[in-house]
């Protein structure tokens, strides 16, 4: 029951918001609901009672409305509920059109994402999967930046293509289930699919997740979308929606087609590592600050995918930890980008420089976030990436070497960007730039606290993850 409450709070609040017109009221209600949801999530974690919720839905097609929460889901739900208050907070005091509609769409996305992470039925999973896309599409289309018409279109069609293949896979698995067919994950997991089938079925299922994450070479939608998106849109996209792909692989791909996964394991790892290097190099060359962050996010996600397919418990532990830390870090980075844009009117780095003199506090906070992103020890990024590289090392030394490039190259392009944005000479016409406002502190300080807190004392998360890693340590051949 508590799961249903978590799922419904954002959606119902969102519908409720449609009746209000005053922006501050709408924003406060939305924020309040998301904080309540976060508190309920914490209660759920501390009581650690295994709870499920099941309801008959479309019986004759074997579809039931089943919600459940295991440790993987719990991390994802925690991440979602942790980030959405910040996403909503980022809208405060800013000029926006149709605030009630925007907040409705954001909360709707939250509900759909929670649904994806809690669904125990493949059909339900798919419905939420698509449902999450629609509000984001409109957030990008209506509140996005330049060129939004074509870019959102590409993003939308690209992701939906993957989803439809996933649908094909779900139906194919559905008609394999014995007796009166069902789409429950438990039934899917028990299927004994011949290896020759698993080999092609792997790609049918994986393509949807690969596009969402995105894995090289399915990434072309991502950088322009991130660049064009509004701050809140990109926070949702980069912070949570990329994790849908990772969750999908863990929940769907590994248990259902294990032989297919073993067959393609090295291919995917190599693709991901190509993605790491490729994205890092391009991040270094990009002159646009937001584009640079987008590619850096892709590099980090690629490392996570590589680690995921290493299929050992170090890697999975690191991966799930990194899901949390990457989500927090990337949201903070994109908020920084938003601040830079607001203060100077541009995100093109050649036109920036010398912001530190005008906004010293901003420069310090940015530096801490940046260090978290390049995985300096004592930040959350370090714990996750270290474990993932250790996991990759068990698969092959070379994988670990190329995976480790994320950190090195990350340090290069991030520090270079910092130098170009914050340090050096002041360039044209931003004389009247001030330092951070109280709202900005309210967003950045807690995010930094999480980054440092998880880096210094990661044990609570590992305690949470213990059962998962035990499952996955049995998966490797």
């Amino acid at each position, binding site marked *: 029951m508590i799961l249903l409450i978590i799922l419904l709070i954002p959606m119902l609040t969102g519908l409720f918001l449609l009746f209000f017109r005053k922006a501050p009221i709408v924003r406060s209600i939305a924020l309040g609901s998301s904080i309540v949801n976060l508190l309920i999530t914490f209660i759920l974690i501390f009581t650690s009672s295994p709870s499920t919720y099941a309801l008959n839905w*479309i019986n*004759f*097609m074997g579809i039931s409305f089943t919600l459940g929460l295991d440790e993987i889901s719990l991390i994802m739900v925690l991440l979602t509920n942790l980030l959405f208050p910040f996403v909503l907070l980022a809208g405060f005091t800013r000029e926006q059109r149709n605030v009630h*509609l925007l907040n409705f769409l954001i909360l709707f996305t939250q509900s759909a994402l929670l649904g994806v992470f809690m669904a125990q039925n493949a059909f339900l999973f*798919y*419905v939420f999967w*698509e*449902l999450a896309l*629609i509000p984001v599409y*409109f957030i990008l*289309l*209506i509140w996005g930046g330049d060129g939004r*018409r074509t870019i*959102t*279109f590409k993003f*939308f*069609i690209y992701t*939906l*293509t993957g989803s*439809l*293949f996933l*649908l*094909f896979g779900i*139906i*194919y698995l*559905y*008609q394999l289930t014995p007796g009166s*067919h069902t789409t429950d994950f438990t039934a899917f997991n028990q299927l004994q699919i011949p290896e020759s089938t698993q080999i092609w079925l792997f790609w049918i299922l994986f393509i949807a997740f690969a596009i969402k994450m995105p894995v090289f070479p399915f990434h072309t939608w991502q950088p322009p979308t991130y660049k064009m998106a509004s701050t809140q849109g990109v926070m949702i996209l980069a912070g949570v929606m990329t994790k849908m792909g990772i969750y999908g692989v863990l929940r769907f791909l590994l248990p259902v087609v294990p032989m297919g996964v073993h067959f393609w394991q090295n291919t995917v790892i190599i693709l991901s590592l190509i993605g790491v290097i490729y994205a890092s190099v391009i991040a270094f060359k990009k002159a646009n600050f937001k584009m640079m962050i987008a590619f850096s996010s892709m590099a980090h996600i690629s490392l996570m995918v590589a680690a995921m397919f290493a299929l050992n418990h170090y890697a999975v532990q690191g991966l799930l930890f990194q899901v949390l830390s990457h989500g927090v870090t990337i949201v903070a980075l994109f908020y920084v980008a938003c601040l830079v844009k607001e203060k100077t009117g541009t995100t093109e780095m050649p036109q920036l420089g010398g912001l530190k003199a005008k906004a010293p506090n901003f420069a310090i906070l940015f530096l801490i976030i940046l260090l978290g992103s390049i995985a300096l020890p004592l930040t959350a990024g370090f714990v996750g990436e270290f474990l993932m590289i250790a996991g990759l090392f068990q698969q092959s030394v070379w994988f670990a070497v190329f995976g480790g490039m994320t950190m090195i190259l990350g340090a290069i392009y991030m520090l270079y960007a910092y130098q170009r944005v914050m340090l050096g000479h002041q360039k044209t016409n931003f004389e009247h730039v001030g330092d951070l406002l109280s709202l900005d502190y309210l967003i950045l300080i807690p995010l930094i606290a999480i980054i440092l807190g998880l880096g210094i004392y990661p044990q609570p998360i590992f305690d949470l993850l213990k059962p998962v890693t035990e499952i996955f340590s049995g998966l490797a051949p």
Partner: protein
Amino acid sequence: MSALICNIVLGIIILYLGFLKRKSILAPAAIAGLLIVMFLSFKDWGLGSRYFHDMILFDNFSIAFNISMIIISILIFLFGIDYYQMMSHHVAEQYALMIFALTGAFLMTSFSNLIMLFMGIEILSIPLYVLAGGKKASFRSNEASFKYFMLGSFATAIFLFGIALVYGASATFYLPEIKTFIAQFNGQLPPMVMVGLLFILIGVAFKVAVAPFHFWSPDVYEGSPTLVTAFMATVVKTAGFAAFYRLLGMGLLPLPIPLEKALWVMTGLTLLIGNLGALKQTNFKRLLAYSAIAHSGFIMLAMLSQHDSSAKVILYYTFVYSLATVPLFIIFILVKRASNGQEELFNFRGLFKEKPWIAIFMTILLVSLAGIPPTSGFMAKYQVFVLSISQGNLLISIFAILMAVIGIYYYFFVVREIYTESEQLNPIVLTKLNAALIIGCSTAVVLLGIFVWNLPV
């Protein structure tokens, strides 16, 4: 049977009501009459009554399809109250012709004899030829009517020729007897029967606008008065597919291999041409025409994946498709009026700013047609894919999925136009009835997608 008779009488009554010169009573009278027809249809449920020496069989299949068509017709007539507001002449004839066409549609769902199918198709088609030319002063409307008539009669001739050939070989029109006749050859049919069956299928395929017999449909849809287009895209299509399914299920299954191959090729072509054709359209009516062709492809897929539940899936698919299409035509008419008679896609620009609620409901309808959850359009496509994949038609299913992606592309092209700002905004005048129709249909489209039950067909 009482429903059928009542419907004919209703048509005649409406025709005579036209003498009263009071437009306002026509639509309410027609709707009241249709409600009675619907009630009479319900009464026949489960009886499986046969008439005219088994030429007509009102089983649950036909009653379910009839009721679905009556509901859609009522929606169209409600739309007609506003649509015919400006028109002073021949309004009664328009309603009466649509009711007569509906009578033909009833025959098409309930035949068990090829002659009855032929009668049904003709009774459906002849009023439509007239209706397509409803705007007498409009050049496009005349063209549509003429084109539809020429091609339609050509198809009818081929169809009749096919019936004659089959009769010549089997000496019967009665479908179950034809079935036993075909079965005795074990798939090695004599050429005469084969050609006859092929011609019959071509005749029906023409009516439902399945490629390569679809060429009439975009022109006719574009030229006809919008209300008639809505009628053709929904009721006529439903009737055509009911007839197609009944023809296959009652008489021709299992199909001889060459014919089955031909139908599969037609399915693939329909999906391809419908979706690719829609991509480059700038006229909204033509876009919906191609989208109708594309949806025909999906229904064909369900039909050819022979399974007990095919009939349910087709019924569900056609109904929710019609339910989403009718309000789209209503919104289209509102926008057309606001933009001085232009029918282009970019006329939808600024709709979100001008009437946000309509924009949102239109989005829901387009999302449903595109087949994205949680709408009923998605459930319909899902069921089609479940059918075709569980029957092992994997490659055509993947092909259909790729085509569905293209479908999403052009529907969201319209969505994008809705949310694009435009410089000049024309006020959109919306009657309460039309608003209620749009809201009601959109809500139904969503609810039918969430609450799906096993249809007792």
